[in-house]
């Protein structure tokens, strides 16, 4: 049937295919598990860059030599989209690091595996801040382990305070004081152009960020974004109140009446570290930037100013390590083992060695942190501010709510509408979103 040469060629072809199949076969020597981790800030898991992190990884591998950890960095702007599409496609990571504002969406889509009950008990019995539950607990179960724990406060430049004749150890406490301080701290050149704002506001970028930096003012006036904010299914917007309007109007007055802030300045943290702003509100984790980018700057951290008759309030937020519900039970077991190790009392500070000033999960650890030992007043400020912490709403539509509210309040700040108009329109849109 076949000629001699053809037979030889067919024979060679069969041998080549067989060899490729043998080479391509998986090894049966031992079952290696790969734990895939996605994070936006790879430095806290970059064992090749930090010896302390490498030492913690080595501890884990000593106990579980068959587990390989593969860390992938995903830019923040892409993380939510990439995670959700990866889950939809069935190729999601086993561990992912996300902020708590996204947690409601992920839990609503049944993606998160809660921390085992006995591990949760052990974690809090080791002295972890009980406030951690504000962000990471849902339906009575801890959903993940904390990575970045943030409390928002008023960052202020002490030298600028002194220069303006203000007490550098006493940041403003009330809205009136806040406006007064901001006016005194604002600088202009001979042509009248503002060269330094008393307070830098966040008005550009993702609307959720706009809301995040402003929402503490809303809370201090006794107002929340939605009804039953700490349940997933609130159906009514509740921010269109005199308190809500006052919180929006505060910024409008500072921009147009006091001229102590401006829409022409960059991101508040950039403005603060470049000494273009005397005050700004953001997470305490921003210390990391002050220390590394402006090491000579003398700065303080205080509570968010409140209106007269209002309550102290601030954002308490956490980025957490979460385990995917879609992973196999063996992988989930290894994932929780890994997370338990990197967040225990001994190892947690090592994992955060590249992030000076970050809050540890336990006060006892902070008391031993060289960063806080050198700055006892800072630890005292954080301890003061922490009890005022409010978590972001647990509503599953929080992303869309923030997007809508952020857009309308920014439009009011840009002079396109009054504070009342902005909140009326935002309320109508948010109610439509909640009704969908």
């Amino acid at each position, binding site marked *: 049937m076949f000629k001699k040469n053809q037979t030889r060629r067919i024979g060679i072809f069969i041998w080549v295919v067989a060899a490729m199949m043998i080479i391509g076969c998986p090894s049966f020597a031992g079952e290696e598990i790969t734990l895939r981790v996605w994070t936006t800030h790879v430095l806290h898991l970059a064992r090749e860059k930090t010896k302390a992190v490498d030492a913690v990884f080595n501890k884990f591998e000593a106990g579980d030599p068959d587990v390989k950890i593969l860390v992938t960095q995903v830019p923040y702007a892409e993380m939510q989209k990439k995670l959700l599409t990866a889950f939809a496609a069935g190729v999601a990571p086993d561990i992912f690091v996300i902020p708590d504002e996204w947690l409601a969406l992920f839990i609503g889509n049944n*993606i998160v595996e809660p921390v085992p009950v006995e591990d949760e008990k052990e974690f809090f019995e080791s002295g972890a801040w009980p406030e951690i539950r504000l962000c990471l607990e849902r339906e009575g179960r801890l959903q993940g382990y904390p990575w970045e724990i943030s409390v928002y406060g008023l960052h202020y430049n002490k030298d600028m305070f002194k220069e303006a004749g203000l007490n550098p150890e006493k940041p403003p406490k009330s809205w009136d004081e806040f406006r007064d301080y901001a006016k005194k701290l604002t600088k202009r050149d001979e042509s009248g152009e503002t060269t330094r704002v008393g307070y830098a506001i966040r*008005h550009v970028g993702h609307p959720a960020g706009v809301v995040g930096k402003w929402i503490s003012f809303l809370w201090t006036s006794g107002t929340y974004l939605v009804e039953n904010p700490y349940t997933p299914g609130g159906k009514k917007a509740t921010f269109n109140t005199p308190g809500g309007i006052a919180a929006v109007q505060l910024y409008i007055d500072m921009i147009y009446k006091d001229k102590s802030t401006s*829409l*022409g300045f*960059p991101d508040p943290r950039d403005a603060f570290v470049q000494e273009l702003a005397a005050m700004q509100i953001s997470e305490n984790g921003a210390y990391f930037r002050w220390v590394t980018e402006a090491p000579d700057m003398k700065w303080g951290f205080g509570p968010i100013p409140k209106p007269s008759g209002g309550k102290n309030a601030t954002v308490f937020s956490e980025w957490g390590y979460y385990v995917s519900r879609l992973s196999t039970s063996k992988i989930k077991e290894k994932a929780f083992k890994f997370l338990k190790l990197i967040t225990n009392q001994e190892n947690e500070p090592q994992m955060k060695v590249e992030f000076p000033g970050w809050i540890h999960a336990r006060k006892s650890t902070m008391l031993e942190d060289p960063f806080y030992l050198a700055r006892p007043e800072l630890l005292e400020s954080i301890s003061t501010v922490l009890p005022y912490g409010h978590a972001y709403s647990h509503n599953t539509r929080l*992303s869309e709510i923030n997007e809508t509210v952020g857009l309308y309040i*920014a*439009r009011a700040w*840009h002079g396109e509408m009054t504070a009342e108009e902005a909140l009326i329109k935002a309320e109508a849109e948010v109610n439509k979103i909640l009704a969908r």
Partner: protein
Amino acid sequence: MKILGSKISQKHRRWIWGYLFIIPVLLLFSVFRIYPLIRSFSLGFYQWNILSPIKPFVGLQNYRALSEDALFVQALKNTVIYTVIVIFVGTVIALFLALLLNRKFKLKETFKLVYFLPVITPMVAVAIVWEWLYQPQFGLFNGILKYLGLPTQQWLLSKDQALMSVIIFSIWKGVGYNMVIFLAGLQGIPDIYYEAARIDGANSFQRFKGITLPLLMPTTLFVIIMSTISALQVFTQVYVMTEGGPINATMVTVLYIYKVGFDFLRFGYASAIATVLFISILAITILQFKFLGRRAEVTY
């Protein structure tokens, strides 16, 4: 050659080989272009959240919602403004540069390179650089304005200036490409027409109007059509420089599709917007061919 007992002619044999060679490309094109296009059309009739197992058929609801969507209307308006200005100004500048570079002078090739360099530089990289140039406090542009004693501007941070700032960047980025196309078109115009016109006493403007413009029409049509298609789909520079802000002053259609799909997970609605955009681009292109195409047929 015989297949199944019947003889195949040489002509048919050539056809068979031809199709065999293009089948792989056709398959790839079908899988990565045609199928996603058809799928996208069909998704527009569903309420499609990628994580939800329930994806109900909603008919034309997504399309009806477009007319009530103020942000979609704004995105469309911004896209049209962007397109009109970029096409008009960009085409005029590109033609002007091509006319200058069509002459013989020293360093001509260097100038060609300088104008073409932005075209080959990655969009994201240059967009980030321009963000810094536009920075109100430290940026080069305000530095120059200050030096000249002129008032500084907010550029990308101003809701009134942000779109124009992105347009200026886009024109700078794309003008070199159209310049090269115009240059090729100019070099295709035979010199004898210009010589004849000179002999008849025509001045440079008359030669430009009577010879250059009409004979350059096919090239101009190509530049306008391709630039229009590209401008209507603007995304990268807006995403990098402003993310559609401040307060959606630079929100454009494709960025809105991206937001609706990937931020709000409403893929059905995003597909409906994409379909509307596709039909709009197709309609505009057909109209351009119809009205400008007639003027492109010039013979002397």
